[in-house]
């Protein structure tokens, strides 16, 4: 299917097509990428745009993900707006370069299509890949559907390149469920995206030969700590910038974005905390429960890095019980990564709700309305002391 024809305002696109369209409109100077299921289609489509002369990007076909991000880092440091994309083991193979991109403060934007990490080998969705990379110093934005993937990628450019931030951003969508599922997507005109993201501004471009400079020097006991402190500060400041960009994007599209999305939380007594495509299915369940007169709400974590602890504390301190859904296990023996962080966020609130963990959907295991409903009804039975029985519950696994 030629994608050119789909450039009307609304189109039916797969998540990968939506991501490729966002990249086409962002029009980076350099894309260096290596294919991996289920991300392949994004870079395949983008290389087609390059081949057809639709974009004037320098496309670097590399031999691995480690090289993909290395080349992207080099290009970004040279002064080029640079992107790559990956999934799962590809992200794992980028590992050391992830930290370097963040430590050098290079504003790279990278779509990541969530896929379970091997082994056993699996190609389907869970969040073990990006959850493992959550402390690499990148901003992380999770998308519920193809539209959000498109919207988040465009916003990510503004967030990454903000002079106060200058951090790489990974924007995720669920593998196959979103990446290969076709949905209605509203696309902005090319010019609107161009104006929204503005010109690339990296202040230390290596190709600026009149101002020679060194990027990536050795810092030891003398300076490393100060640079990490500055990096931590940028992550904190990112919260404000993400909100501002999300609001501005809302003025452009009627779709504004925050760090979290509260769904029917106004008078909720029970809440689920979810991220990714499962949030959509959970909304369907919340609607059904509400029809039955049950006071349930949903909190979707959109931005996982920086972690919106204060906002979560605000909305969750009003409920009796919270079920935190993790599509990854941390193997700490104490539940999934989101659970640990949500519980930590609740430590400081005056009214602390019961809070338990549901680990679900590993390796692409389907998570339908019935399973989510069973978890929702489960948290209703929580009483003082009852959590200690099983703080961490596995949803949809065969016993």
């Amino acid at each position, binding site marked *: *299917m030629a994608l050119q*024809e789909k450039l009307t305002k*609304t189109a*039916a696109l797969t998540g990968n097509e939506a991501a490729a369209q966002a990249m086409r409109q962002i029009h980076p100077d350099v894309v260096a990428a290596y294919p991996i299921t289920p991300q392949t289609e994004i870079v395949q489509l983008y290389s087609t745009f390059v081949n057809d002369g639709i974009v004037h990007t320098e496309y670097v076909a590399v031999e691995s993900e480690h090289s993909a991000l290395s080349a992207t880092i080099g290009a970004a440091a040279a002064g080029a707006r640079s992107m790559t994309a990956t999934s799962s083991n590809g992200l794992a193979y980028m590992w050391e370069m992830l930290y370097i991109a963040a430590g050098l403060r290079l504003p790279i934007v990278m779509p990541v299509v969530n896929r379970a990490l091997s082994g056993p080998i699996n190609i389907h969705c869970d969040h073990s890949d990006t959850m493992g990379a959550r402390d690499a110093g990148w901003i992380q934005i999770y998308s519920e559907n193809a539209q959000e993937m498109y919207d988040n990628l465009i916003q990510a450019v503004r967030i990454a390149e903000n002079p106060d931030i200058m951090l790489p951003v990974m924007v995720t969508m669920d593998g196959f469920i979103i990446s290969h599922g*076709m*949905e*209605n997507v509203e696309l902005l005109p090319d010019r609107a995206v161009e104006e929204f993201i503005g010109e690339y501004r990296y202040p230390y471009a290596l190709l600026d030969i009149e101002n020679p400079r060194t990027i990536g020097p050795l810092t030891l006991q003398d300076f490393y700590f100060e640079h990490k402190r500055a990096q931590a500060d940028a992550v904190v400041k990112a919260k404000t910038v993400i909100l501002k960009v999300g609001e501005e994007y809302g003025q452009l599209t009627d779709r504004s974005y925050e760090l979290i999305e509260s769904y029917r939380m106004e008078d909720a007594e029970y809440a689920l905390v979810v991220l990714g495509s499962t949030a959509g299915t959970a*909304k369907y369940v919340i609607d059904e429960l509400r029809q039955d007169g049950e006071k349930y709400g949903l909190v979707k974590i959109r931005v996982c890095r920086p972690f919106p602890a204060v906002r979560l504390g605000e909305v969750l301190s009003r409920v009796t019980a919270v079920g935190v859904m993790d599509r990854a296990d941390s193997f700490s023996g104490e539940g999934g990564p989101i659970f640990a962080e949500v519980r930590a966020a609740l430590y400081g609130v005056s009214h602390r709700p019961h809070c338990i963990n549901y680990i679900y959907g590993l390796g692409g295991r389907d998570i*339908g*309305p019935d399973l989510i409903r069973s978890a929702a009804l489960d948290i209703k039975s929580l009483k003082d002391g009852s959590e200690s029985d099983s703080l961490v519950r596995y949803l949809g696994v065969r016993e």
Partner: protein
Amino acid sequence: MTNMLEIRWHGRGGQGAKTAALLLAEAAAAAGKHVQAFPEYGPERMGAPVVSYNRISDTPITLHSAVLSPGYVAVLDPTFIGSIDFTAGMPENGALLVNTDTPALQLRERLGLQNDSIKVYTIDATGISEANIGRPIPNTSMLGAMVAVAQVMELDDLLQDTERRLEKKFHDRPRLIQGNLAAITQAYKEVECR
């Protein structure tokens, strides 16, 4: 949410079950519907059984889980009969659309469907495709028949959108475009119910 259509397509790798779901979603989206189309990914081999799905609704669809009880099921390959339970999960009054030249009543017997809770529709999609396009690829014919059975949209809207998209793909082969449109129209009109 009650007005949401859920469709399951059964085909073999290479027959276009995935494409049929994508074409339907695109056409329905162009007609103003909210849509989803997604395949069930497994070993992707020519000839291996494959399944794909649609959700079509007048209101936004937030569900991102598997389709477990499709109101409509399309079977692109008659050789599946006897080996796959097409009716799995189908609700009362579900509709089964099969590509076969066997009359619907006879097919119902062969499938062992005793009661009338599931409607059975048949269409000789392969025959129609061969006659109109010159190739035994049944997906556009099945698309026409499914649009009629599930009343997804008007035939004219489907033809218009399909023509627009085929023109991009086969701009140098106008006979192929006209053949596909004729196949869709014939299948839309001839689909038989029992």
